[in-house]
């Protein structure tokens, strides 16, 4: 994934608020990246652009050496569905659906037949260690368990990139550790993991830390763990 000269401006006319001032960033397959920065630095906006939730105002965006220009909503939805697995701070599970149904949902939009959906969702829940909680509703699960369901959901359509926005923000430190270990495991399996965080301890799991300030990358460190 290659981003060059990406800018993002919110609003228009006199109320224009520039958020990103020209981001150049290349992300290789299999990297474990932490994006850090104070609030207002533009890290969420960058994540939204990487996750196809938003489009840049200017600049070019290549995915697998293919340029993605100004694409329409329908194409964006497909890109999200196929390439990105989202993990959110607030989990965002569908409250009326059990764990299995929640994990299944991206596959519904991918048009996978029911039998295969259930099969794959079950495998994913087993993988995150919730094989015995499939029929539980979100409010019957602990915070850590909810986040595991969310991770299973992020992984079920086999995306190349897992995009996590403060994945441990709502969890205690012990649970955070378990979730991060799961993230490391995913990375070891060859998936690109990108975590947006402002916690040093979380960023410490990554092998590349990108720091943003005022819409620009101020630091980009690689390290071998």
């Amino acid at each position, binding site marked *: 994934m290659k981003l060059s000269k990406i800018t993002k401006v919110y609003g228009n006319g006199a109320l224009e608020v520039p958020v990103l001032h020209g981001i150049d960033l290349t992300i290789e397959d299999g990297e474990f990246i932490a994006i850090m920065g104070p609030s207002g630095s533009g890290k969420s906006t960058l994540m939204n652009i990487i996750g196809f939730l938003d489009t840049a105002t200017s600049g070019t965006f290549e995915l697998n050496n293919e340029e993605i220009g100004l694409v329409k909503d329908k194409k964006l*939805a497909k890109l999200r569905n196929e390439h990105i697995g989202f993990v959110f701070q607030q989990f*965002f599970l569908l409250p009326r659906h059990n764990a299995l149904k929640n994990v299944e949902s991206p596959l519904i*939009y*991918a048009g996978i037949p029911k039998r295969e959906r259930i099969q794959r969702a079950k495998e994913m829940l087993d993988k995150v260690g919730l094989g015995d909680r499939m029929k539980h509703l979100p409010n019957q699960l602990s915070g850590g368990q909810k986040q595991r369901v969310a991770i299973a959901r992020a992984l079920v*359509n086999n995306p190349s990139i897992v995009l996590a926005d403060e994945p441990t923000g709502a969890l205690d430190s012990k649970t955070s550790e378990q979730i991060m270990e799961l993230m490391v495991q995913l990375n070891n399996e060859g998936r690109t993991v990108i975590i947006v965080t402002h916690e040093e301890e979380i960023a410490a799991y990554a092998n590349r830390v990108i720091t943003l300030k005022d819409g620009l990358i101020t630091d980009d460190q690689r390290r071998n763990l």
Partner: protein
Amino acid sequence: MSLLESFKVALSSIWSHKIRSILTMLGIIIGVAAVIIIVAIGQGAKSKMTEELFSLEKNAVDLWYQPIPKEGEEESEMFWMEPELTSEDVDTLSQVPGVKAVIATNQGWGPMTYNDKQGDMEITGVGPEFFSARDIHIVEGRPINARDNDGRNRVVMIDTVARDKFFQGKDDIIGEIVELNGNPYKLIGVYESPIPEQYRYNESGEMLMPRGVISMMFGNLEIERLAIVADDPERISEIGRSAADTLTRAKKLEDGIYTVNDFSEYEQELDTVINIMTLVIGSIAGISLLVGGIGVMNIMLVSVTERTREIGLRKALGATRGRILLQFLIESMTLTSLGGMIGIGLATLGTIIVSNFAPISATVSPLIVIIGVGFSAFIGIIFGILPANKASKLSPIDALRYE
């Protein structure tokens, strides 16, 4: 996502807000039920009136003599006599194309006594053709036959009303002797009264006699009135007119003509009146459907706002704008269709109640059911467009950030 799945999601979301959903559906329920009940009652009233006005004449029509006033003469001052009718006229009429049978009758009237019971009877003189031409249901004994008529047999048939009055509780009454105007007659049969209960003015009932006997005993003509039966009930007026014209020509009438009552005109008028009534009341009920639809739109907008985050999440997971739109459309359509179905259920109940308390058989036709469900689904789509569109246009980022 398949439609079935969208539908299941819709049902579960309706189910999770039971009270709200029912209150929202109420407008549709009342609207659909009102429209269907009104249309059903209208149709019931129409068929009832049509039946009552025309049942006795369904495929038979009387031929009337109508004198034509001479120039300068007022109709009320006219002195005229009806031409005599003979069996030749019967033959003439039976030659007219489309005429299945000719019914010749005459009338008599008098007190009948049996043991200590007495009552005034209306007597119709008939021939054997009467029973095949009219739909007379014989419950006991036999009909009047050709031999009775030719031989001037003094036999009578009574209707079920008269049987109840004169022979209450008696089992075998065939062969009993009754007295009419002081003369004895033999009872040979009982027939089902063709007159609907509420129109039986003569509480003693009616009776049939060979018309030859009436003519002999009462001194009137053997044929006083002619009616024809058409082989195609739909063409009764047309065939009746051509029969009347034929009779007028055959009798070489100069100061009068034979004519028939034209029921089709009455029927059309009645149709128009009832249709206008149904339309007016139906459109008032239709307004209730409109109001119900607005209620649905309102609640769907609330639902979209409440589920902003869910919408954002679904978009993040790969739902396209079209999918979200479809999801909410199906939801509002399911809501209104359910309301429509409940409304139809209520309407069915309502028409059953109406049929029990009013002399109208109001029925909910399958067509109305299909239209009812279809129309309420249509309302769901129409009033679902705005909320669904709003939902589909939400940006996933804003929606996920929504608190």
